[in-house]
């Protein structure tokens, strides 16, 4: 990061009317814009959604970080927040919403159930939404406090600042993958069986590091 954020803000040097000129890296200015205008697509299915609502309300005030508006249309959203457990019946819904969101887009898996299935290691529940959609940040907790969600969002902003426009892999989407699961079948089985995702993921997946930002691909053995 060659340029500090505050240096990129246009300034008017003096009142003499000279044109304002700013030099910066394209990555820096694009990421600065993306970072500070993340519009969340709230996908609240359970108690985590209550905490998400609290995060957006006056006391915690997500708008401080650029989430001015909960975007209830995926077409205008940048960030999918899955707050709560996801039953299999909703799997195709969240996948469709994810596919409808335009790039650039990110995903936060909020809470134990969305991240791993949590206590719901049962017939009806998806064992981690990263089997369905790619997840950028996992927020632990049951449910996470608003501070937890906000910390997750700040981590996501950190991640966005490190992205490069030249990296085409980050933003490319394969039309063939629309409506498909995110992880291969054998990986889904490995993370979910025999004792469920929440107790198995580190041992089975071979995921050594437990850094806060983890791509689902990190789990592949």
């Amino acid at each position, binding site marked *: 990061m060659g340029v500090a954020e505050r240096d990129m803000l246009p300034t008017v040097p003096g009142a003499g009317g000279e044109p304002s000129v700013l030099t910066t890296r394209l990555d820096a200015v694009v990421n600065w814009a993306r970072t500070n205008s993340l519009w969340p697509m709230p996908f609240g299915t359970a108690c985590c959604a209550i905490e998400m609502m609290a995060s957006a309300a006056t006391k915690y005030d997500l708008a401080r970080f650029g989430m001015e508006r909960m975007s209830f249309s995926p077409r205008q959203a940048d960030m999918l927040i899955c707050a709560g457990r996801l039953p299999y019946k909703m799997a195709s819904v969240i996948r469709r919403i994810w596919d409808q969101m335009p790039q650039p887009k990110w995903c936060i898996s909020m809470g134990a159930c969305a991240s791993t299935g949590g206590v719901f290691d049962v017939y009806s529940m998806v064992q981690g939404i990263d089997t369905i959609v790619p997840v950028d940040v996992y927020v632990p907790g049951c449910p996470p406090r608003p501070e937890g969600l906000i910390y997750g969002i700040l981590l996501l902003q950190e991640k966005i600042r490190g992205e490069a426009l030249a990296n085409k892999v980050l933003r490319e989407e394969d039309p063939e993958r629309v409506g498909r699961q995110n992880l291969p*079948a054998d990986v889904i089985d490995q993370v979910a069986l025999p004792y469920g995702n929440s107790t198995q993921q580190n041992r089975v997946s071979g995921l050594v590091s437990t850094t806060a930002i983890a791509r689902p691909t990190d789990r592949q053995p």
Partner: protein
Amino acid sequence: MTEKSFDEALRGLETGEEAGAGSGAPRGAAADASSHPSVAALRDRFGDAVLHHTIMAGDEHVVYVASERVRELLQWLRDDAGQRYDLLVDLTAVDYGGGRPLEVVYQLWSTTERRQLRIKATLPLTALEIDSVVEIWRAADWLEREVWDLFGIHFRGHPDLRRIMMPDNYAEGHPLRKDFPLRGRFTRAEQTRRALAMAVEDFYTPDELAVTGGAAPSGTPKATESASEGGNGVPDRPNDPDWSPGTSGSAAGGAPAPGGAQP
């Protein structure tokens, strides 16, 4: 509940060796019919169809009736001038496990007489079929669909018997039955694949899917084969690169092949 009785209860779940379990005899000591006016009236009118009457939790009157006459009996309970059970509070079912018969439960409330009554009908696992009461209480529509979905009890004469809780392409059986494995019969990979393969357009009419202005659902839903155990009209994707038979047939707990026969 003491620890001892808890252990006994668990053993009963596994083996069905509870007192009278094999015969499916109703539980609870027989109560005095005169303690509830409706029970006395039921005994007078229906005689042998009223199998047993007991009191649970102090004042909950439970009447076991013959399942083949349940519709006629409930119709009378709603319409008779002395009964007027005009509100179907709940309709559900219970599986006590161990091969014991399932019980269909009707919880009734009379708004005029301010009385409640619980009617139960037992169904052996080999003949899970009972008359629908949708014609008597419209509220029974979705409740019976739910019982069908989760327990697999077929309601004769139901206008639209199909799944309501589980996805329409669900083919693993009826989850609330005691013989149903906790994690389902398929592997997680196969469950995920099927969940994503489901398109709601295949199962609902445009009217039902309309967010606003949709007409009330009427006529014939597209998934008319739902009553035939599991719905085989699954929009499968044999070309799905994420799926192969080798990865999905190896579930813990001996899952059958996907789309296989129901046990």
